[in-house]
């Protein structure tokens, strides 16, 4: 039971981190109608920027500056790149972000090397927060959760309580009308893109040292974030939140539970021929498959996603 509690906490920490990524992606999608393929690249940039700053002046300054820097890069990308491609349509926009992801994935090792960098958890946050019968829950995971929840509250506050948040909400559904009311929609778009990428950057700052900071980190998390926004429903923040926790749990539990497919199926009263390869497949092996399976199933059964309002 204690093991389950710890794993559950771990999965929530991971799920909240995923939500930090997917919320930015969702906001950008709502505003621009385009899935940002380079979104995970900004996550990676956040981790590397934070690492670089931490080598000069420690973790905390990186935590503050790195997301801002990433947001700045995001705004530049929107301002000098995406904005000009928009007139060619959504496919061109999407492909632009696709190309951007390739460039980032090549640029990062060019600057920081191909191997992982020693971006470490700060000493203040090392150690166990508490332990249950030998199973420890690290302080840093607790810190991640606190950061994510704080960000979540801040995001909610900005979107619902501030003037800019209301304008953004209006722009999400009726950009023409907002423009007609005299607001500068291109600038709002740029700011939103910057904000969304800054969120990804923040996720990178606190995720980079919890996991590994390496050039392939964008690719490994990129597809998962797509799965989340699709499963949650394109453009739905609530859906993204739900799906983030779901996928976080799915991934965390599948790597920690040492059971085979046969055993899982027995639980629900099914069985496979004992001698086949399929029966010996363990859940750890199936782990990477599960998110995609979920995404395909959702797209077939409920193309709007869990809480989505539009289909494409």
């Amino acid at each position, binding site marked *: 039971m204690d093991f389950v509690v710890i794993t559950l906490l771990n999965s929530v920490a991971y799920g909240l981190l995923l939500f930090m990524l997917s919320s930015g992606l969702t906001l950008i999608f709502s505003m621009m109608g385009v899935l940002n393929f380079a979104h995970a690249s900004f996550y990676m940039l956040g981790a590397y920027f934070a690492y670089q700053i931490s080598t000069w002046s420690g973790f905390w300054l990186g935590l503050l500056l790195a997301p801002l820097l990433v947001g700045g890069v995001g705004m530049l990308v929107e301002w000098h790149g995406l904005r000009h491609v928009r007139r060619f349509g959504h*496919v061109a926009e999407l492909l632009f972000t696709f190309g951007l992801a390739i460039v980032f994935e090549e640029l990062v090792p060019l*600057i920081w090397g191909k191997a992982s960098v020693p971006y470490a958890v700060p000493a203040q946050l090392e150690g166990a927060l508490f332990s249950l019968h030998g199973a420890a829950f690290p302080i840093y995971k607790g810190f991640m959760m606190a950061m994510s929840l704080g960000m979540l509250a801040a995001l909610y506050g900005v979107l619902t309580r501030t003037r800019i948040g209301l304008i953004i909400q209006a722009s999400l559904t009726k950009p023409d009308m907002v423009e007609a009311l005299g607001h500068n929609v291109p600038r709002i778009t740029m700011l939103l893109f910057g904000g969304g990428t800054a969120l990804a950057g923040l996720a990178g700052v606190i995720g980079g040292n919890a996991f590994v900071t390496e050039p392939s980190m964008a690719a490994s998390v990129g597809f998962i974030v797509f799965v989340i926004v699709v499963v949650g429903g394109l453009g739905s923040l609530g859906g993204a939140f739900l799906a983030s926790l779901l996928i976080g749990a799915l991934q965390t539990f599948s790597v920690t539970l040492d059971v085979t497919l046969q055993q899982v199926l027995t639980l629900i009263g099914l069985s496979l021929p004992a001698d086949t390869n399929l029966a010996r497949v363990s859940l750890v092996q199936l782990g990477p498959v599960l998110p995609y399976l979920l995404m395909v199933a959702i797209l077939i059964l409920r193309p709007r996603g869990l809480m989505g309002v539009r289909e494409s």
Partner: protein
Amino acid sequence: MTAPSSLPRQVLIWAAIFVIACVLPSLFRSGFLVSVLSQIAIMAVFALSYNMLLGQTGLLSFGHAVYYGLGAFATIHLLNGLGKSATPLLVALLPLGGGAAGLVAGLILGRMTTKKAGTTFAMISLGIAELMFATTPIFPSVFGGDGGFAGNRMAGKGSFLGLTWGPQIEIYWLVLFWAFVSAGLMFALTQTPLGRVANAVRDNPERAEFIGYDTRQVRYRMLVLSGLFAGIAGGLSALNYEIVTVDMLNAHTSGSVLLMTYTGGIGHFFGPVLGAAMITLMQTLVGGLTHAWLLYFGLFFLFMVAFAPGGMASVLSRQSALVKAGLWRCLLPHYALAAAPAALACLGAVGLIEMAYALLAGHDAASFMGTSIRLHTLLPWLGAASVLIGGIAGLKWVIGGMSDAWHQALSQLQGGKP
């Protein structure tokens, strides 16, 4: 998007490609060239099949490698299954087995993917492809684990029309034969009711429903046929390399074919062929020179999306129309004027990237035009950066005039038409 090209021009392009494909290997008896040409022909079929979706039906797929990869696996299994009875004639027919595998995969997967177009299609194609790839380690008997499967196209005895498929040049002729057959069929498809209605569905799916067409059925049929040709391409690849690995059906392969097709030009039938040739050449030539090839490629792709969304084919056809109309003369000075700063900017960027790669590889010095550059000093970096910035500034300076001249020429071109 579909340029109304006259039939003689189409014939001319087919003939030109045919002549180039046949003459080049006879002219230069180089094994390297032949293997590059084989690769181009295979990728051309794959990219053409991809464009049946993207260019003709308006479906952006991130998982087309599934059909290509399954075609390759089917072919290698057939080849190994035949063993010693794989006579050269049978081997020559094996790509059809790959095509059948692609077709069947399309029949099954298309049911799930073609319900919707747009982002939903893109995401579900990505999801299914990732699902497929992530599942491969569970079925080592089908996908062969990390090592994949090897085969031997000369396992059987005898010959067919004097061909044994031993030398690379012989397999090149086989690849070329199937490439032309496939391309011919795919071209023919664009001239059929289904092909035309696919264009209509791409342009305006809603209206297509109001002229009697079930858009889902149109998409489904196009996807299945596209799977067939992607499978043939995969089969050709299996025969050409005699090895098939799971990498053939991963997201990277799906991405490559998308990039080839798009940079070649999705609005012209031959655009994907051009893209396949261009990217494969870049990959082998630039990839041999520098480790930074993917970075250059990414930058090139960004440039294409931002400035030439119609791809190379549309750039070429625009220019050739301008040449024909005699308007090129007005543009030539502008092109020449822009070429110098553009070259400077490229030089600066390449310099920076190459020095960074050299540094990354642990070198202290790099050589440029015979002189040694010390990488740990500031000067070469400043030099390269100022060349880059100077080039960009120069480009900004001349680009206004060029764009004016360009629009003027274009409006003359359109106005001049009857």
